[in-house]
């Protein structure tokens, strides 16, 4: 039943999107943190999505063995954007020159990310609800 596969497919998408939401929450929470050196400053993280292998193989897959073209979470990468030095000699973390280093989180970008992730999450929940209804109707076939 192809409809059963939808639960796996949309489920993987839900996992991916909630990870994205999680990472965004972590980024937003650390947007204002400062650190004593550029190396230890917080860097924005982003999840990397990839389509699961079977989807890419397309028509070559064996009949009947049509499985999920779900979303795979490849990993989480850190942003390479430069961290911003702030001159704050009175700060306890300041280095010898009186600078602290602010995280490179772009708050606007993260807000957009958050909205996009929650919309995608909603879409997939809706897909799952619809397929569940269809399956329940199918079970009543012939009654």
């Amino acid at each position, binding site marked *: *039943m*192809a*409809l059963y*596969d*939808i639960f796996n*497919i*949309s489920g*993987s*998408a839900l996992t*991916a*999107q909630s990870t*994205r939401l999680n990472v965004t929450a972590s980024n937003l929470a650390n947007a204002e943190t400062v650190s004593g050196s550029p190396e230890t400053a917080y860097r924005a993280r982003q999840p*990397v*999505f*990839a*389509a699961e292998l079977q*989807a890419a193989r*397309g*028509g*070559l897959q*064996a*009949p*009947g063995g*049509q499985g*999920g*073209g*779900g*979303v795979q979470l490849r990993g989480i990468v850190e942003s390479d954007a430069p961290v911003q030095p702030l001159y704050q000699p009175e700060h306890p973390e300041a280095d010898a020159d009186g600078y602290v280093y602010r995280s490179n989180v772009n708050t606007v970008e993260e807000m957009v990310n958050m909205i*996009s*992730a929650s919309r*995608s999450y909603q*879409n*997939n929940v809706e*897909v799952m609800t*619809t*397929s569940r209804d*269809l399956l329940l*109707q*199918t079970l*009543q*076939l*012939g009654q």
Partner: protein
Amino acid sequence: MTLSLDKALGPAADALQLHERRTQLLAENIANADTPNYKARDLDFRAAMRQAAGDGGLALNRTSAGHLTPPGSSVGNPTPQYRVPANPSLDGNTVELDQERGRFAESTVNYQASLQFLGSRFTGLINALRRE
């Protein structure tokens, strides 16, 4: 005379399977709306249905068990086609979410229609078999 259930049920059973497969593909598209380089796919329902009705041109003959099955040879697994996007995004993703959602809704309604049709075929069969 034997009763062939396949014949009695007509094309609604094939249609149901195809709608199911199409719904799955559209769900895949929606799930991968944010995946870079994902290419949206869909079924040509008309062509698949024609194939299911046995009008798909010449079929390949498999003379050995080791031969690969030609793609799209069975009713439940026709070859999906890649969509031509109107506005491809920069990351290579060709899912257009609004359209996919519309198609998903359309596909589920079609599924329900086939389901209801199949259900009424069953009711008709049961009525015909029942001794009054």
